């Protein structure tokens, strides 16, 4: 499936009567990794959830290959646009059960070699397939979640702070897996993160979202170059809004 393009146009969102996002517009090109960077609680995750309609977006604000997502079949949209969450929820059962969950919803049984292939995509050994899903390290669990999301054959991925619960080594490993996957599968990726260093390592382009608005954008080379006056560099220096980790 060819990788799709996202267009977000004049997107606003309020929660409990308070504005969370105000008139946000940006795009993600096919096969691109775009990071949505900003302090925690800035509405990045709320926006991400609208792209696969876990939250219903206002009509005519989010487009997948030019088509308004609110006019698409919601289940088909979610199979086409995979998602990985900050907190991993593996279902009871084995790793293989988890990987096979998505295809199983449509009564497709996933053959073992297909489970092995998906685990390999997430840089996991085939032996892990029979392991109990509750007996994994944080990094392994996140990779299983990734393999599980890939099982429905998505053309795009939404990553919601996928490494913020992981240690630095596991974080780097997940990052390199994602870069490799983009290369091999041509996935379009929208990656939400609060860590400027991560955006710098993985993104083709970065949008900085502060107080519900996009305040800066560009390539990492441009935004983070030494001596940059860009807000993103200021944010990275810890002098803008958020709480750094």
């Amino acid at each position, binding site marked *: 499936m060819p990788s799709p393009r996202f267009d977000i146009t004049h997107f606003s969102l309020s929660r409990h009567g308070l504005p969370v996002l105000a008139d946000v517009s940006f795009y993600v090109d096919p096969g691109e990794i775009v990071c949505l960077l900003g302090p925690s609680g800035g509405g990045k995750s709320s926006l991400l959830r609208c792209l696969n309609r*876990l939250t*219903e977006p206002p009509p005519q604000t989010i487009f997948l290959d030019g088509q308004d997502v609110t006019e698409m079949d*919601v289940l088909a949209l*979610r*199979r086409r646009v995979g*998602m990985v969450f900050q907190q991993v*929820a593996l279902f009871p059962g084995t790793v293989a059960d988890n990987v096979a*969950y*998505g295809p199983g919803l449509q009564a497709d049984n996933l053959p073992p070699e297909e489970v092995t292939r998906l685990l390999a995509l997430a840089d996991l050994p085939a032996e892990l397939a029979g392991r109990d899903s509750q007996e994994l390290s944080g990094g392994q669990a996140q990779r299983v979640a990734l393999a599980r999301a890939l099982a429905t054959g998505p053309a795009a991925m939404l990553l919601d702070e996928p490494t913020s619960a992981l240690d630095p080594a596991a974080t780097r490993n997940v990052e390199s897996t994602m870069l490799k996957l983009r290369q091999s599968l041509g996935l379009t990726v929208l990656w939400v993160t609060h860590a400027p260093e991560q955006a710098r390592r993985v993104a083709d382009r970065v949008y900085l979202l502060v107080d519900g608005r996009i305040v800066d954008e560009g390539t990492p080379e441009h935004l983070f170059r030494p001596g940059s006056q860009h807000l993103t560099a200021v944010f990275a220096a810890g002098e803008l809004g958020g709480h750094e980790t």
Partner: protein
Amino acid sequence: MTSLNLLSELPRILAALFLVAVAAAISRWQHLDLEKQMLVAVVRAFIQLTLIGYALNIIFAADNPAAILLILAVMTSIASYTSGKRGQGTPHAMRVAGLAITFGAALTLGLLVGLRVFTFTAQQIIPIAGMVIGNSMNVCSLVMRRMREEIKGRQLEIETALALGATRQQAVRPHLKTALQSGMMPIVDSTKTVGLIQLPGAMTGMILAGASPLQAVQLQMIVMYMLIGAAALTGLAASWLSYRQFFTANHQLVDA
């Protein structure tokens, strides 16, 4: 049918009350502050049961189908209101409880009458309906509460499933199963151990009233099967109706 003469049993009632008086005296002596609540309970029970005794006496004597249906409607309404209150936190809890209890009770009673297990007479239907509706109410409250707790507590699992392309029904299935099992557990357990631990109410009543234990046992079987059936039907309806209150038609968890 003989008219109810309450005074004929007054000495035995007073004798039973003597025990309450002893307990109240102990409570007073030990400053346990139970005596006031016990007094209220005893007085309420006396008034409520006397009234219902006279009311049933009139209804049994009249044996009018419309009057029976009216009584059933009142019983169902009270049960739905009570269960709906317990189900607060679930959107439209009253409606969910009302529909679930009505469904479970109506189907059970309809089958019992249709299969000629009981006749549609006040003397048979009203006590039977009391058991069925009361039991359905308990199951409905338990299932609704557990369903709400499951959905609130398992939001991440549910949304993970939705994000993988699951329908709301597929996403909620394991949690619906948990809610239903926990709601059904008391009735299933009491049915499993019936007669081994305690003799249930209907049977006790018949034996005390002079029926043979074998007659009493047969009635008790009917009662238990009917109650477990009604519980399952009500529980199914309650779990199905309440989970839907937490989702949109687009397979999204309602933000609550």
